[in-house]
């Protein structure tokens, strides 16, 4: 048997204030049978202050219709529950950072280092300005792609990939292979 004390009283008061109703199983650290007795004791102690009703199973305010629990009545949410049950739409603190000033040297890193610079800039700027950080990352990737494509476009004219060695030659009219010599008299 648990002794009714200040701790139990405070716990029940808090539950009643926050939930609007208290059942024995809601009392922490106490067996339900003992909790029922404690709730009954709570009603006796506080009967002079607040009109309370305990039907053996539920402790609630006396203003709540008697028998409401048995009929499936659910009390309205307490102020605490009403706040905690609100759907979160996100506060300004939760929203991603935007509009912050990003150091100019990050753009230099993006254009000189390409994708690695873009990743670096994204890491540095993402907490300051997420939109700019994303733009820097994309710009870095684009710079890398362009810097890779430009030399590839010139390779054939430089003689790589067979571009210089595979000149167009006329077919032989004699059906024989042709030997070309470009040289000097010596």
């Amino acid at each position: 048997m648990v002794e009714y004390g200040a701790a139990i009283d405070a716990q029940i008061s808090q539950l009643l204030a926050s939930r609007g109703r208290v059942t024995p199983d809601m009392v922490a650290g106490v067996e339900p049978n003992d909790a029922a007795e404690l709730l009954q004791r709570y009603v006796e102690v506080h009967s002079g202050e607040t009109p309370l009703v305990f039907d053996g199973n539920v402790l609630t305010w006396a203003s709540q219709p008697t028998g409401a629990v048995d009929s499936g009545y659910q009390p309205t949410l307490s102020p605490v529950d009403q706040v905690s049950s609100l759907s979160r739409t996100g506060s300004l603190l939760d929203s991603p950072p935007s509009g912050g000033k990003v150091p100019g040297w990050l753009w230099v890193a993006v254009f000189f280092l390409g994708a690695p610079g873009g990743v670096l800039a994204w890491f540095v700027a993402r907490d300051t300005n997420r939109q700019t950080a994303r733009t820097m990352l994309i710009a870095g990737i684009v710079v890398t792609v362009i810097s890779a494509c430009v030399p590839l476009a010139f390779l054939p004219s430089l003689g790589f990939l067979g571009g210089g060695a595979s000149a167009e030659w006329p077919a032989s009219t004699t059906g024989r292979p042709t030997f070309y010599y470009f040289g000097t008299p010596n």
Partner: protein
Amino acid sequence: MKPVVDGLQAQYQGRVDMLVYGDVNNDQKANAFAAGKGVSAVPTMMLVSPDGKELERWVGTTSEEELVRAFEAAAGP
């Protein structure tokens, strides 16, 4: 290199057609033709199959044996 080519020209007459531009530095037409074929140094030699496919290209001097081997492979028996 030119004497070697002259010798091969005689040796493979009738089996390999020879187009010899022996003074490409002073022959403007030969120079333009060589530039169109991607020649950037002399001597440069090419062996082209009857259907116009470039089989071999030598830039700089090469041995007569190397040329003979290519000629034999291209001209056949």
